[in-house]
């Protein structure tokens, strides 16, 4: 096997405090120290001048629906789409068929991953059986079979007793619990942000307090049990304030936000397009600004894709009857580049912290880095490439993206997983 030579790229590696133009070499899946003058090995040169060389991204929340196919996305198509967005690790949420709530199913899923995944797929197990919020799932046995986190996402355990005991029990196994904070009693008919626009459109409101009450619940339980709870898809400015305060008091709370919540406006549902229907809903501008500022000051740790594929016919219905959720693997980095780096002066190192390093830490995984000896999980971004997220460029089987046919500047052009090129932009 030859040595791959990434020539002249801007290498971003926050774990090693690196942001500089330099060459990278890798061989047999590992980044190596190499000198062409001292070696007779065959070298495959890839010119990446003016490109940005990044450690593989890590997604904290991906939904693939059905691992065996026949649905909008499966392990094979899903991981290919993730690679096209720069991800080399994703956390697969348990809302798949069959549900990841027992050891047998976990083994089955692991087997499918082994056969079909082109990147690393970490597993999240259910907190409660069938994610119904009634009986705890066998968390210890799930961990023995390889799950690295626990969640009922995209559902939310409503019962406080079950949730707090579940968190306490998970802490014994050092399993982080991931929750989308949502009080159903305040949002059961809510399909849009409870604001003037939903009122005008006649859509049921999903208010900020439906999220904030459960953010407070998570903070209180995390503090009382002294364990990690990760809040996924924060959407309200009030939640950002509460998490900021909790972190000041050293409560072990972490949080993420989706790329689309950083970028879209609540106005996007003005013509009832279900491809903009998300859980939680896209809120107002002051929320969006607070989310960006929360990322900037470290209140929010990460950006996730919340990739949730649906078949075209599932979304092509009346807005209130359509399922909530959008795809995000292939667009989140480009969105973050535009929204955070270009418009809000985030450094590339900061962006990689929130899209790779911090998610790894939250999941208790080794951080992705570009040091000698590390796995060659590398992705290359062309900041000038103009592209459209259209049928030709889309790798995901699902079409429920809010960015359908949108123009972007900046794209992942290559992704390597353990040295193997698994995505090339053509």
């Amino acid at each position, binding site marked *: 096997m030859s040595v791959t030579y990434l020539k002249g790229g801007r290498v971003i590696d926050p774990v090693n405090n690196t942001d500089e133009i330099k060459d990278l070499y890798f061989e047999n899946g590992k980044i190596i120290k190499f000198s062409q003058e001292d070696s007779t090995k065959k070298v495959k040169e890839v010119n990446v001048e003016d490109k940005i060389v990044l450690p593989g991204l890590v997604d904290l929340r991906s939904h693939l629906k059905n691992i065996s196919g026949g649905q909008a996305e499966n392990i094979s198509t899903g991981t290919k789409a993730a690679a096209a967005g720069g991800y080399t690790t994703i956390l697969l949420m348990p809302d798949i068929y069959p549900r990841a709530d027992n050891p047998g199913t976990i083994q089955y899923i692991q087997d499918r991953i082994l056969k079909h995944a082109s990147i690393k797929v970490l597993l999240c197990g259910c907190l409660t059986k069938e994610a119904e919020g009634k009986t705890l799932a066998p968390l210890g046995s799930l961990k023995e079979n390889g799950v690295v986190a626990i969640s009922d996402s995209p559902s939310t355990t409503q019962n406080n007793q079950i949730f707090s005991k579940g968190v306490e029990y998970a802490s014994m196994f050092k399993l982080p619990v991931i929750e989308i904070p949502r009080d159903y009693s305040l949002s059961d008919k809510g399909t849009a942000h409870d604001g*003037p626009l939903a009122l*005008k459109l006649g859509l049921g409101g999903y208010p900020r307090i439906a999220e904030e009450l459960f953010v407070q619940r998570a903070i209180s339980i995390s503090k009382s049990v002294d364990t990690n709870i990760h809040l996924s898809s924060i959407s309200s400015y009030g939640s950002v304030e509460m998490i900021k305060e909790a972190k000041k008091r050293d409560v072990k709370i972490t949080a993420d936000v989706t790329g689309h919540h950083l970028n879209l406006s609540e106005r996007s549902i003005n013509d009832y397009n279900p491809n903009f229907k998300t859980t939680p809903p896209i809120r107002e501008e002051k929320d969006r600004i607070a989310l960006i500022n929360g990322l900037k000051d470290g209140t929010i740790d990460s950006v996730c894709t919340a990739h949730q594929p649906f078949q075209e*016919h599932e979304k092509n*219905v*009346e*807005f*209130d009857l359509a399922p909530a959720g959008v795809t995000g693997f292939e667009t989140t980095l480009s969105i973050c580049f535009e929204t955070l780096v270009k418009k809000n002066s985030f450094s590339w190192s900061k962006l990689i912290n929130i899209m790779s390093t911090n998610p790894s830490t939250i999941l208790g995984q080794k951080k992705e880095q570009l040091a000698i000896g590390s796995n060659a999980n590398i992705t290359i971004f062309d900041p000038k490439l103009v592209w459209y997220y259209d049928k030709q460029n889309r790798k995901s089987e699902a079409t429920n993206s809010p960015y359908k046919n949108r123009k972007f500047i900046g794209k992942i052009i290559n992704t390597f997983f353990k040295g193997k090129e698994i995505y090339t932009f053509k």
Partner: protein
Amino acid sequence: MSKWNRKHLIGIEELTTGEIKRILKLAKVFKKGIDGDPVRTDYLKGKRIVNLFMEPSTRTRIAFEIAAKSLQADVISVAEQSSSLTKGETLRDTAMNIQALGADAIVLRHSSPGSPLFLSRIVDVPIVNAGDGAHEHPSQALLDLYTLQERWGNLDGKKITILGDILFSRVARSNFWALSKMGAQVTFAGPSTLVPKQFESMGARVCHDLKDGLEDADAVMLLRIQHERQSSSHFPSLSEYTNIFGLNKDRKGWLKEGALILHPGPVNRGIELDSELTDSSQSVILEQVANGIAVRMAILCLCTNPGSLSNL
């Protein structure tokens, strides 16, 4: 007066004042016909109008039927219970089938807000919104406007209070757009849980005190309390509503003399409106119903013949 170039009637919000006036003017012509004047009415001859009603309706469905028949159309009414939607067919597929069967227009009543807009992007035929969830009910607002205009001539500076369950009401929303576009001032009144302050962002005045809501009004439009759409947390009980917000004989004194009483129906007598007041001389409730036919004739006529009919 602007021309009518729309194929669909989805909501009042997007209409210009000129377009609203266009409908009302044509409705006036048809009203004369209903009253016995010789008026040409064969504009929909040979056309097939499908009333696709996915929610219960009496007045609106019948008025659309009569309106279409008065224009010599063939009318087919489909109710949810008798449609394939009960067999799991989606609205999209049902509508495409109806189009394939040769419909020239679809009148849609549906519980999902936005469903007429959704259909208008799928099928080629005109879609007339006959009520979509809590979003809009344009034909109702237009007939209310027609009724008030018939009484007052014009609505400039008039104050109209819409009282009751505004949150779940498509009639309130459509009427807000219609009345304010025609120069009237609209107040939404009722309990705070059903009349959220956020309605002010649309431009309406919001008030939670019945007396305050009534005393200035030139007309008051009462809405039915829609038990079927609310959870029990919006207000305690119907009797509590009647006690605090019901319009009864005693409170009639809070109204200006001659103030009109409107109601889109169905009226829950004795709950939001006292039975006697329902039948009083101030009440224009039955005029509203009768005007509904002429207004809907105008709507069907314009949507199926956009750009023409300029002679009417």
